[in-house]
């Protein structure tokens, strides 16, 4: 048999082969120990060197061709078998995915983290202070001496008469921070924390609530600086098209004191129920640190000045997320809090 005949008969056999087992048998028939090609090479022994050389060359050619034909067939079968397997492994990708546990933050913490992020980017440290607090820090150092009417307004939970209380504001952290800093270093800090007042709980009142206190003490700080700072946070939280304004107000530990408003983001200042038709929404109280407070806390008001502000975390969250009942934050209905497991970009 010559080359062509062998290949031709091989090809004929290959056409009827559909699986690797049959192919392996065929491979043995040709290339095995007793295979056709092997048998041919046995003729070598009886040939002259020239003929040997000739036959050798021919045999090599046949071997190469046979191997190639079989390998090609194998490739074809492998591919078909793989495709069949893949076909059988087809799944319904619309079935639900496995619930990978991922927790949601409390809604208040969500807004607090946003505020923290903005202030940290402006160099403010985030600090903490005790909730069971001394009267000294909660009131006296903040220019609210015993008997001052401002104390009546912040109906406080006293633990010991006139000395230990549940803090009614986060402002004592201002005093603590200044005293710790020692009167000779600039301060930039915010303090989000729980506060307590004797309010009966309803949709808009809570005996426990969270304030985000802020304090900056440095040299040559002005009310305009406070306004610029407020602009930054207002725009970050409520959008770049928000307008801001200051209104005169009164707090014992700041002078001048302001209430800070943002333009209503619902009606864009036209007047709606959210802004009670004023076009403006009050979001925080602020002011220049009162010289008495600076002095009480070891800072010479002739050298140092600063501003302080306080946001109500609940108010911010209620405004931003459209929450109507302040009790929402303290109930943790998981159906409500789950959507807060995300970041707003």
């Amino acid at each position: 048999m010559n080359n062509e005949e062998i290949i031709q008969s091989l090809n004929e056999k290959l056409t009827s082969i559909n699986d690797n087992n049959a192919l392996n048998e065929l491979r043995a028939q040709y290339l095995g120990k007793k295979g056709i090609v092997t048998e041919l090479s046995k003729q070598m022994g009886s040939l002259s060197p020239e003929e040997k050389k000739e036959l050798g060359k021919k045999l090599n050619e046949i071997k190469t061709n046979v191997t190639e034909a079989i390998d090609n067939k194998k490739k074809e079968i492998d591919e078909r078998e793989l495709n069949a397997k893949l076909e059988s492994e087809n799944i319904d990708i619309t079935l639900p995915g496995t619930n990978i546990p991922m927790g949601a933050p409390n809604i208040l913490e969500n807004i607090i983290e946003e505020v923290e992020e903005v202030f940290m980017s402006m160099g403010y440290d985030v600090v903490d202070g005790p909730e069971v607090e001394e009267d000294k820090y909660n009131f006296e150092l903040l220019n609210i001496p015993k008997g001052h009417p401002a104390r009546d307004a912040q109906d406080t939970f006293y633990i010991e008469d006139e000395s230990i209380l549940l803090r009614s504001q986060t402002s004592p952290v201002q005093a603590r921070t200044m005293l710790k800093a020692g009167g000779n270093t600039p301060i930039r800090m915010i303090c989000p924390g729980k506060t307590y007042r004797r309010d009966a709980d309803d949709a808009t009142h809570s005996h426990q609530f969270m304030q985000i206190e802020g304090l900056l003490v440095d040299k040559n700080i002005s009310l305009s600086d406070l306004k610029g700072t407020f602009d930054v946070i207002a725009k970050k939280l409520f959008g770049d098209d928000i307008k801001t304004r200051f209104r005169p107000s009164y707090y014992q530990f700041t002078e001048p004191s302001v209430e800070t408003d943002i333009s209503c983001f619902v009606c864009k200042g036209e007047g709606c129920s959210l802004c009670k038709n004023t076009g403006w929404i009050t979001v925080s109280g602020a002011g220049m640190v009162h010289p008495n407070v600076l002095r009480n806390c070891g800072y010479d008001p002739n050298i140092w000045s600063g501003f302080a502000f306080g946001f109500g975390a609940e108010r911010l969250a209620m405004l931003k997320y459209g929450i109507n009942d302040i009790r929402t934050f303290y109930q943790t209905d998981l159906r409500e809090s789950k959507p807060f497991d995300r970041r707003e970009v």
Partner: protein
Amino acid sequence: MISLNWVKDYVDIVDENLKDLAVKITKAGVNVEAVITKHIDNLVIGKVVKCLDHPDSDHLHLCMVDIGKETVQIVCGASNVREGIKVIVALPGCVLPGNFEIKAGKIRGQESNGMICALFELGLEEKNDETYAKGIEEVDDSVEVGSDANIYLGTDDTVYELDVHKHRNNDCYYHIGFAYEIASILNKKVTLPDDKFKELKDDVKDYIDLKVDTDKCPYYTCKMVKDVVIKESPEFIKQRLISAGMRPINNVVDISNYVMLEYGQPLHFFDKDKLGNKILVRNAKDKEEIVTLDGQQRVLCKDDIVITDGKKPVCIAGVMGGENTDVDDNTKNILIESAIFDAVSIRYTASKLNLKSEASIRYGKGLNYEYTDAALRRACHLLEKYADAKILSGIVKHDKVDKTEKVVSFKTEEINSLLGITLTNADCKTELARLGFDYKLVKGVFTVTIPRRRLDVDPNINDIAEEIGRLYGYHNLVSTLPMVPTRRGVYVGDVRIRKLISKRLRSLGLNETKTYTLTSPDMAKLFRYDNRECITLPNPMSMDKSVIRSSILPSLMNVYEYNKARHIDDILLYEISKTYDKDYHEDTKVAILMKGNYILNAWQGVKVKCDFYVLKGIIENLLNYLGFNNRYQFDKVSLPEMHPGICASISIDKEVVGMLGRVHPSYQKDEIYVAELSMTKLNEKQVRGIKFKEASKYPEIKKDLAFAIDKKTDAKTIINQIRKSGGKLLTDIEVFDLYEGENIDANEKSLAFSLTFADMSRTLSDEEVTKVFDTIIKDVETKLNAKLRNK
């Protein structure tokens, strides 16, 4: 409540739009919450010149009414309408309360060009059988036809409802003070009211002997008037009191209220004949009693101030007068008290006796002695004019008031630097003049004397900056950012670890909660595993918020119940919160609650149920994350509200830092797992930095084995023994099976371990590993009484 008609007496606002003015006032710092106007347009006084019966009705009348510029026909149904009376006419275009607009039209075929009104139709009286029967208002004949009926009715006033910030009640909650505020906003002058009167030769000093025996009364002045005639007040006084929210009573009482609303100084009138000849102001005695003029018996204490007649109390100073000396219809002679009492004491007494009044609120804010004097003179003037009083000469006075002037010096630059604006000295002068602050400017330094009426302004630069700033207008401030170095802020102290823990627990699938710190005594008794005694508030609002919690777990149980009631099955919670004990020791705790499935894919049947080991895994994960690997251990404990067999303490370096386990089924039958850790303790511990540890480059050898062992022997005991016997070649031990049942004794269990052997510097030989392996087996068998099952 401020009546703008009243304010007009002191400052010129005739040309002002009162709504715009309210906005200006608000911008300058006194919040006008509401502008209330009672004025009804197109309401005039008319005269019925002819009154006939309506041809088509048995009760309607056809009236010809002269309204000044013309005479119009109006159909009227009132029974008292008749020829010759003056009436109130609502003309077409007039809108009556209830949004009822009057239109010209025909009533039963007859033309009607308006409506003749009853007071109830104008919203000035309640509509009832009585007022209906009274019919239309019959206007006094002296009132001019065609004039605005609002003037007759007293409805031509506009009232501002103020939300005055605490410190400004002093100067803005009375009409003269408010006039000063308007004057500074509009840059106008204030005219004070007339306080002149004639005096008798008799001197009050001959009629009254004053002694003040308390330091809580720095200023006490009296004048006496004789022969008053008690009667109704003139219309303007009545109308103004009504506008300001007070009820007119009689001329004398009304005058005392009127002066209080003018000058902010409350007055007290004693019936001089009932009082006698002596006044002694002193601190009350404990349990001293007085019947106040509302007829109530009041029991006082030594913190209250009383006015006495030398023996018995006749008035609780600043709060309420006594019945024994009150002014009644027969009163002839009056002693007028105008005084200043200690503000704190008045606030205390008023709130203790639940007797907060217009007067006590004002005393409680503090007063200015110049107006104490002015109010006394003004009262005399009004009593002379409207109660026919004759005023005795002289004044009885106790005066220990501090008269130090409030003076502050500053440069304009200092104001500019505080506000971030650029005023000149001339601007500054203008602003100070508008405020009515006296000033001197010498060599660039302003020296300002703050008027006494501004009790709220302290002599410091910030206060002056505020006054100037609010008139300058905060809306005119530019926005700048502080000139401070750029840096990024950091989480300081506790905050840092709190954030780390919080974020880790969230990423481990737990949902953050926030619950109330204050709890009920019953709740506070639960989960007292660390024996901390709670703080109980001395004066709580309610029992359910009367204790400061020492554990968060009871609150988390509430959150669990809340969500369970809403058919949520898988509840994974945590909270980080400060807790306190009786010694005010603060312990920030991390509490975890888990119930239901941790991982779930229901349709595939894949479930990882929350159990002790899932929770333990979370805690181990957290502690490893915080750098405590190899430093913590779990020990079996029995704790209140916890399942006795499924509960462990968590220790780091042998110090207990928390616990975990299943909630006791008798407390909560659902399978709930909880844990609580002290974040404060975690944060106190030093943590080493991360150190790289190279993995062995030589092959590891793994060998498995299983022991049958007494059920009571815990895994840790076996692992410890294996580790001890394994020496340094044994690098890892993993538990891969726990089996109880067939082929094992009833009191035994089978525990299977996979051991890893390796060496950093060479390939281990089978022989040496087998040698160690055999040692391990022998040791565990002999020391722990275990049997090797297979290897």
